[in-house]
């Protein structure tokens, strides 16, 4: 009787272990899929050096397209609909080995077939209004958009402990590029290049 209970518990426990390994394998495989199947891009970055409690030293990679000036890039964002924390898609085109963003949208269908990354809107700037222009009840969300700050999931690069400062200094001295693999909007940093 007791051994039967233990056997049942053992089967359930084995199932839990399989479940845990499936979750871990899912993390690994989804990243490998992006790295192996994705389009390889080289993007210019500006680094700084923080530290993660669980994961050690890493370099923050800041890209020019983290802050998008919406007067300089083509977009179809609707001021009344777009909000912080919503998903956003950024399409790229390649010019002389360097990839640069050229279109931003919230509609994934509009970037299908192109090289694009998916991100999250952190902050939106809207055109300020002079007091005399302001109607009695102005809806802030209807004001025209001027700037979009977004996170694209490729802003961190882990380095061996204690080497963050050294690497930062190395890359401060030259121009730094991030090698990024992109697959159906998902992206992973695969390495750093310095000139």
């Amino acid at each position: 009787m007791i051994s039967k209970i233990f056997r049942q518990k053992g089967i359930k426990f084995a199932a839990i272990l399989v479940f845990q390994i499936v979750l871990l394998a899912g993390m690994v495989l989804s990243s490998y899929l992006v790295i192996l199947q994705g389009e390889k891009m080289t993007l210019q970055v500006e680094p700084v050096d923080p530290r993660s409690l669980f994961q050690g030293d890493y370099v923050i990679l800041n890209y020019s397209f983290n802050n998008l000036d919406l007067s300089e890039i083509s977009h179809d964002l609707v001021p009344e609909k777009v909000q912080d924390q919503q998903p956003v898609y950024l399409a790229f085109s390649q010019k002389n080995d360097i990839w640069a963003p050229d279109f931003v949208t919230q509609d994934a269908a509009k970037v299908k077939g192109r090289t694009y990354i998916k991100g999250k809107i952190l902050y939106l700037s809207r055109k300020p209004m002079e007091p005399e222009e302001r109607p009695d009840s102005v809806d802030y969300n209807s004001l025209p958009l001027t700037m979009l700050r977004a996170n694209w999931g490729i802003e961190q690069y882990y380095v061996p402990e204690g080497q963050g400062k050294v690497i930062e200094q190395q890359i401060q001295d030259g121009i730094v590029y991030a090698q990024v693999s992109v697959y159906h909007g998902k992206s992973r940093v695969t390495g750093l290049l310095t000139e």
Partner: protein
Amino acid sequence: MFFNQNLQRELPRWVADGLITPENAETLRQRYPVTKNSMTQTLALLGSVLLGIGVILFFAANWEAMSRTLKIAVVVLAVLLAYGGGYYLRYVRGTYPKVGYALICLGSLLYGAAIWLIGQIFHLAPEAGSAFLLWYLGVIPVAWLFQSSFNLVLALFNLTAWFIAGHYPLSWPFLFFPLLLVLTILPPAIRKKNHFVFVLAVLAGYIWFIPLGVKLAGINYSFQLGIISLLLFSLVIYLLGQWAERRAFFAEGFLQALSFVGLFAGLAAFTFHDFLSRFGADALGAFPWLIAGTLAVIVLLKIKERQLTLRDIPLLLLLLCLLPFFPQLGESSFLLIALNVLFFILTLGAVYYGYQAKRPLLFNLGMLLFAVAVAMKYFDIFFALLPRSAFFMSGGVLLLAGSFLLEYKRRDLLKSMEEGAGQ
């Protein structure tokens, strides 16, 4: 806990003396269990925690001597060895059950280390809450299967961290966090009468509920709506405390004390003119849904109870939740005075109830918060009226005299409570 131990010691004697039946004794044994935490178990658990943290920090150092595949293989193998070894020692051989349990706990920590390691290898964002969700999903079945408090706390920690990291307005974490809390964390905590986990889970509920009002209003920050959410949640906890008391549930004292602190803090804000006068500045958005939802819970609990008593008076605080709909009332001096009176009635009411019901926790808390209330109002009213030095000197004398009086009366009252209980 000492009560439970003494009771367990007394039960055989009571049965032998014919005071209670063996069935009664068994029922009492199950209702007031004694959880034994031996030194072996404590040491083994501490060892597991230290080892687990060490492994996480070791991989956090991003050691380059190993390839990424080898790193993953090592950590996954470590997870399997810890879990497998723990299971073998505790359930198959049964010779070292405590060390076995500690190894199972270590397995859960190593599983978390594996998640963070994979995140590091692929340069995933450190703030991404999905790592906490994966950790929670992996350890909650372990907590259920082995009825493990350690894994339950670990699951609760990760669930809460996932919710805090995913602070999107009314997104998946906001919707699923309370559901997962109620469906996966609370049942084993209640079944095992695990006071510690139960308290942590209710506090996690606070973390969810308070910003809910603000999020529902669709704005980034509203102190006013946050305080009303606190009042609503505290009222629900207050009613749950009443329910727990009728059912002789193990945590009724904690629920009452928690709701009292929440009601005190919420109502305290309403006693300030600055707070009242700012109603109407924030958009309401979907905030009325929170009020409607809470009202539905309260009405359901009351229908089940089928009666209203004097102890339902705090429910009158629900009226304060209507203030955002009538912001002009915030300018009323009469309302301000009435709320200040109500504030002191609530505080003294808790002291009175704590004394009557012989609940020292609530009684002491009531005395403490009464002193806080007096000090708060002294600052609020007299700071602008008196010269600075006179304000501090008179305040010091008042506080010293007040604390002497409170301590003297408190001891007196606690003594009479004990005597009353002894009769």
